[in-house]
């Protein structure tokens, strides 16, 4: 479990950060992708830069500034490149409100609420900011301009490339865009003045915005870029992706991922920050005016400079905060897409203590019952009962075996079930040995080498017959079935071809191994060849094969094995556990009945509770 769990706004429960739907209530975690404070608005606006004009509008509304500077010719193309922005701008005079947009106001209000949480950080951040204010404001300015650049790029990449070419032509030797150079020429003191409202007015809001922004001062070069990524990706994912990629994961090494233009801007900004002079009057709107005009938007209401500067700084920082949160959410979305198709890590389920209790109590009870039965209850005599049809069929086939007939006994079981199968197989081996049948032993498991010896000693057969080992599992069985000429080196040399045997007696404890013989060997030998002694657990698997005639007869479990032995005139191996087996079966019956009763009781009480409620 990571520390970054998301709390569902609907049911309040925790979810993994990668999910888009709450795993408890099933509702979408829309808030994850919504802008805080902007309810009812689409998180990813369909129109490119539709948010931008509103932000710029807010700047314009708060600060009115000097007349517009003349536009450089190179920017004309960039104006044409942004028809959407122009359209928005044309609409903006109608939509424009003299006040701050509602969504922005909500954002600021929420930021104000969070002031306490970041107060200490903010005060320290304010101090840091005072020390690094010059750098920071230049960086904010650069971030803003680069943000606008990216918006243009996302809208129409080709036009922007030509625009870049045009701007490159207009660039000076240092690679500074002409329009930015002009801005700086017009307002050389603005960058320094911009810093002052933050330095001189450490209001709660400003300190908050600074405090929130400053911890990321090391990342500030990338922060604004990354913050604008969600917007860019929303407006035009494909063109933006290439632009966004340089910014991805560049917190540690931002400069390596910058595009050429951004690198140039960064260097230029650093140069500017070193040479700027602090001024008394911040004139950010003046910087923005030419930019706004480049975008083709009309300058709007002017705002008193001093108030507007402070508010502008605050709104810029808060908006950067907003965009930063958008960036984080976009990163989460990216991670979610990257994790698509991958399996979730298994949730750690704490062990329920109830399970241990049940297991201990029931296990000890059953053990005690079995031990008590073994110690104090005498073994019962075998009762006469009608044998099932398949046992009768097995007995009939065995009765037809005579001297000289070849029988292959295949030992294909594990040590765990050896007692059960030995009790079934030993009487049958004694019978065919008495009949003078020529029988051979074949094992397919490595443990069969010593199980064969135990079986022979249980059956009282001496000398112990040669044990033939067949490697390869199903491959070996198939090879044995098709190799009529005994030319395969992997086959035991003393074995005959399978078709030479009158009957093949399988001693099985696994349904899947039994199926291997039915699928790899039986089709090559024809019907009426296979006799099966199988453990109780796989009696159901043999049933269809017996019904279809692929198995001549079979016995499953010690009871049917005892019936088979009796029908062959052999003394069944009476392991003294018949009573204990019955005790175990009765215990399971009681447990199942109890389980049904308790479940019915629980359902009834729940229904009563719901009725009362």
């Amino acid at each position, binding site marked *: 479990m990571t520390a970054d769990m998301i709390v569902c706004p609907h049911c309040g429960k925790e979810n993994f950060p990668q999910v888009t739907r709450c795993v408890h209530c099933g509702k979408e975690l829309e808030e994850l992708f919504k802008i805080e404070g902007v309810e009812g608005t689409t998180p990813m606006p369909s129109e490119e830069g539709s948010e931008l004009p509103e932000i710029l509008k807010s700047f314009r509304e708060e600060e009115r500034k000097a007349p517009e500077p003349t536009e450089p010719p190179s920017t004309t193309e960039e104006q044409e490149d942004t028809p959407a922005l122009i359209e928005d701008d044309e609409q903006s005079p109608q939509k424009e409100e003299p006040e701050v947009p509602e969504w922005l106001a909500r954002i600021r209000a929420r930021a104000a609420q969070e002031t306490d949480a970041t107060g200490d950080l903010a005060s320290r951040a304010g101090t840091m900011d005072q020390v690094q204010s010059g750098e920071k404001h230049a960086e904010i300015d650069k971030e803003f301009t680069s943000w606008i650049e990216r918006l243009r790029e996302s809208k129409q990449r080709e036009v922007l490339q030509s625009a870049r070419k045009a701007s490159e032509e207009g660039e000076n030797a240092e690679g500074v865009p002409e329009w930015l150079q002009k801005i700086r020429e017009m307002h050389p003191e603005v960058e320094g003045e911009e810093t002052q409202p933050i330095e001189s007015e450490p209001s709660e809001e400003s300190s908050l915005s600074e405090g929130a922004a400053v911890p990321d001062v090391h990342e500030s070069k990338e922060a604004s870029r990354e913050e604008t990524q969600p917007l860019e990706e929303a407006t035009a994912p494909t063109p933006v992706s290439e632009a966004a990629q340089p910014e991805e994961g560049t917190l540690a090494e931002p400069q390596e991922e910058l595009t050429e233009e951004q690198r140039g801007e960064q260097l230029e900004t650093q140069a500017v920050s070193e040479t700027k002079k602090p001024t008394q009057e911040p004139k950010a709107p003046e910087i923005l005016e030419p930019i706004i005009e480049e975008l083709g938007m009309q300058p709007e209401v002017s705002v008193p400079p001093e108030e507007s500067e402070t508010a502008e700084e605050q709104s810029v920082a808060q908006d950067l905060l907003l965009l930063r949160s958008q960036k984080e959410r976009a990163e989460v979305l990216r991670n979610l897409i990257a994790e698509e198709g991958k399996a979730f890590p298994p949730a750690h389920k704490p062990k329920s203590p109830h*399970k241990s209790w049940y297991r201990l*109590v*029931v*296990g000890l009870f*059953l*053990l005690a019952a079995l031990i008590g039965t073994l110690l104090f209850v005498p073994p019962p005599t075998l*009762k*006469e*009962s*009608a044998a*099932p049809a398949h046992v009768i069929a097995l007995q009939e086939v065995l009765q037809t075996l005579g001297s000289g007939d070849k029988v292959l006994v295949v030992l294909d079981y*594990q*040590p*765990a*079930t*050896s*007692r059960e199968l030995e009790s079934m197989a030993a009487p049958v081996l004694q019978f065919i040995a008495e009949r003078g049948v020529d029988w051979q032993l074949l094992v397919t498991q*490595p*443990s069969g*080498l*010593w199980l064969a*010896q*135990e079986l022979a000693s249980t059956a009282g057969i001496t000398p112990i017959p040669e*044990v033939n080992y067949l*490697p*390869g*599992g199903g*491959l*070996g069985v*198939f*090879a044995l079935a*098709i*190799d009529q000429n005994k*030319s*395969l*080196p*992997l086959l035991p040399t003393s074995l005959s071809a399978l078709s030479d045997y009158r009957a093949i007696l399988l001693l099985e404890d696994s349904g899947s191994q039994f199926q291997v013989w039915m699928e790899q060997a039986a089709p090559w030998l024809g019907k009426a060849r296979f006799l099966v002694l199988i453990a109780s657990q796989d009696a159901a*698997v043999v*049933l*269809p094969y017996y*019904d279809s005639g692929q198995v001549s007869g079979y016995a499953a*479990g010690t*009871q049917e094995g005892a019936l088979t032995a009796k029908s062959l005139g052999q003394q069944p191996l009476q392991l003294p556990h018949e009573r204990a087996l*019955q005790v*175990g*079966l*009765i*215990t*399971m*019956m009681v*447990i*199942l*009945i*109890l*389980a*049904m009763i*308790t*479940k019915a009781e*629980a*359902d009834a009480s729940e229904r009563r509770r719901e009725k009362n409620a």
Partner: protein
Amino acid sequence: MKKAIPILIAVLSGLLVLAALIWQPQLEGWLEVMLNWAVIIASMAALVALATLLLAHTRKIIKVRHGFIYSLILVVAFLVSFAGGMTAGVENPNYLHWIAAIQQPAEASLLGLAALVMAAASLRLFHQRGWSALTVSFGISALVFLMLGLGWLQALQIPQLDIVIGYLEALPLVGMRGLLIGMGLGALLLGFRIVLGLERPYGE
């Protein structure tokens, strides 16, 4: 090209075996050769798996990770039984006696433990799975077969009861047949996908 070679080998070997099964007299020799190679490779693959297991536990011992004592037990037991088998021979009665003395009680006890755990788990069966056609039929069927397993009804030797018992014991035939056909179709489809190169369980 590198990725295509294993696919090509799988497809060719599968098609060759299928062709040999159809035209067995003509291609019997090739089939036997391929079977021989396949058995050797399968055995070597099992040995490689065992070696990987051993290496993993050896690394755990060297780095003294949590639970390394269990790895130590495993590695020591492996080395002793392997050395004993290679020196004395895998058919040596005394060697097999020792192997049996450890394998038989441990495996039988594990299977017996499964019976105890099953009994405990049955108590919570319906609470966890709820009531459905599957669980109700499972519960009733289990009770019936437990009753039949006691052998008391068969011991009564009432002919009509024996007929009913016969039908009850044959009832799982329907479900088992359906399951076998379903599993067989799935296995057939998977086999065709491998032979046609659409499925690559050996790695891309």
